[in-house]
């Protein structure tokens, strides 16, 4: 199988799995206990916290562990909203965020908050000045993603951070897709909070982290035993935490090399597919995008059929975000970059990872051409122009 859906999830790196292993059966102690076995777990956890902090250039004290990207986003956004609700009730976000952010904002909008959705241009990029223009004296939070999960566009976070910083407004970024893929430095980006998720960077599922800048206070959304400074109670998932730490360490070490290689493969794939197929288009920005992200559309072709045909050729790719794979609405992100409904239904996201090879890219190029031809033969939207 050729796996090209790394934005949905990635396999656990074998070295990450090795690092986690001792904490399932041997060093399984509860990290909050007093005896040696518990202390082993705690030590492992604290060194993982350092590894996570390091990949985003934060202080370990600024990291809390969560159950994943969704929870990190929820804690950051609701935590700020509930904490600062007496100061203001206005939140700024974009119209291409992940549902973990969008749905959380919609929920808050039903409970007395005002939400502004800043648009993107046709390449899928947010203008910092649009964010600035949206600010009112009631604005308490700006939350804009670092890199988009469908079209891979990278947003001007540092610039937005600068604005937020000057106005004294909390700034959160969902960096689930960018950490481990491109350089992420919380100081350069000027963010107060940053979400990341382990399984997107070759760590285990069910674990994530939230960076909370020193001095930033949040209201917890789960209540219980006071773990993670009261912000995330529950018995610590030590193997998961150790895995996330190791995954960060490995990704940080290989970042430069991996970025170069993935960019090269990505650009080869884009060039060939656009050349070999009539009316094939790239969604998103041509260069300001994640090294591993490709998102095509083909006139007259529907996304799910494309995916299923590629699957039968042994290629795993997706139409966009995994959560929407069983939904019927067109992708909100593709609508936001100005596509028509029928175009937004026809996207193919290919997200490359460190295990992909040049031969695989060649095979994918060839397979896409075959599948596009088959589907166009039966498309009422194509025949009308083709022949």
């Amino acid at each position, binding site marked *: 199988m050729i796996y090209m859906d790394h934005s949905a999830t990635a396999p656990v790196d074998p070295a990450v799995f090795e690092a986690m292993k001792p904490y399932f059966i041997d060093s399984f102690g509860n990290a909050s206990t007093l005896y040696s076995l518990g202390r082993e777990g705690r030590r492992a956890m604290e060194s993982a916290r350092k590894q996570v902090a390091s990949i985003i250039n934060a202080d370990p004290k600024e990291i809390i562990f969560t159950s994943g990207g969704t929870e990190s986003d929820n804690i950051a956004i609701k935590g700020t909203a509930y904490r600062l609700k007496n100061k203001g009730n206005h939140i700024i976000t974009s119209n291409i965020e992940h549902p973990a952010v969008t749905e959380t904002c919609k929920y808050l909008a039903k409970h007395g908050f005002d939400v502004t959705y800043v648009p993107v241009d046709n390449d899928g990029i947010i203008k910092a000045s649009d964010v600035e223009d949206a600010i009112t004296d009631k604005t308490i939070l700006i939350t804009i993603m670092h890199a988009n999960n469908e079209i891979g566009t990278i947003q001007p976070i540092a610039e937005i951070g600068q604005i937020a910083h000057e106005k004294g407004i909390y700034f959160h970024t969902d960096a689930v897709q960018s950490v481990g893929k491109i350089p992420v430095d919380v100081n350069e980006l000027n963010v107060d909070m940053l979400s990341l998720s382990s399984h997107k960077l070759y760590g285990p599922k069910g674990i994530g982290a939230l960076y909370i800048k020193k001095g930033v206070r949040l209201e917890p959304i789960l209540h219980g035993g006071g773990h993670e400074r009261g912000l995330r109670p529950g018995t610590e998932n030590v193997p998961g935490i150790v895995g996330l730490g190791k995954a960060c360490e490995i990704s940080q070490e290989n970042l430069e090399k991996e970025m170069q290689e993935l960019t090269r493969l990505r650009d080869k794939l884009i060039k060939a597919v656009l050349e070999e197929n009539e009316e094939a288009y790239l969604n998103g920005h041509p260069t300001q995008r994640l090294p591993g992200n490709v998102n095509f559309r083909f006139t*007259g072709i529907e996304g799910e059929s494309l995916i299923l045909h590629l699957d*039968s050729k042994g290629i795993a790719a997706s139409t966009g975000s995994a959560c929407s794979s069983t939904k019927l609405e067109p992708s909100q992100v593709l609508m936001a970059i100005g596509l028509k409904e029928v175009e937004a239904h026809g996207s193919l996201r290919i997200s490359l990872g460190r295990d992909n090879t040049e031969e695989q890219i060649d095979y994918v190029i060839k397979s896409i051409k075959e599948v596009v031809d088959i589907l166009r033969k039966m498309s009422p939207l194509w025949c009308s122009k083709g022949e």
Partner: protein
Amino acid sequence: MYTEKVMDHFQNPRNVGEIKDADGVGTEGNPVCGDLMTIYIKVEDNIITDIKFKTFGCGAAIATSSMITEMAIGKTIEEALKITRKDVADELEGLPPVKMHCSNLAADALKAAIADYKMKQAEEEKAKAET
């Protein structure tokens, strides 16, 4: 999520294409998802003798198109009109709940093609009667 039968019809769709001199053509768009299907029929002595389809849509849309063409061919117009979305789904050994509406598309497109055929028939009769 799809049954083997759905996947078979999806991967090896029967009766793909157009009929240039079709007796009836029906196109239906699915408002739920924006998918689109066209069915072409040839009718002789009230029996569907040839049928082809073109579909822009999901796996279920393609599979149901293929399935309904197999079910309709050789049937009389009256019999063909009785094919329901449920019959199509059953014949495919089921569809996932969110995909049940896809079978609407096929049943509706077939009905539209038959309606088109009947309309053309009526026009011809009328033309005949006038001459």
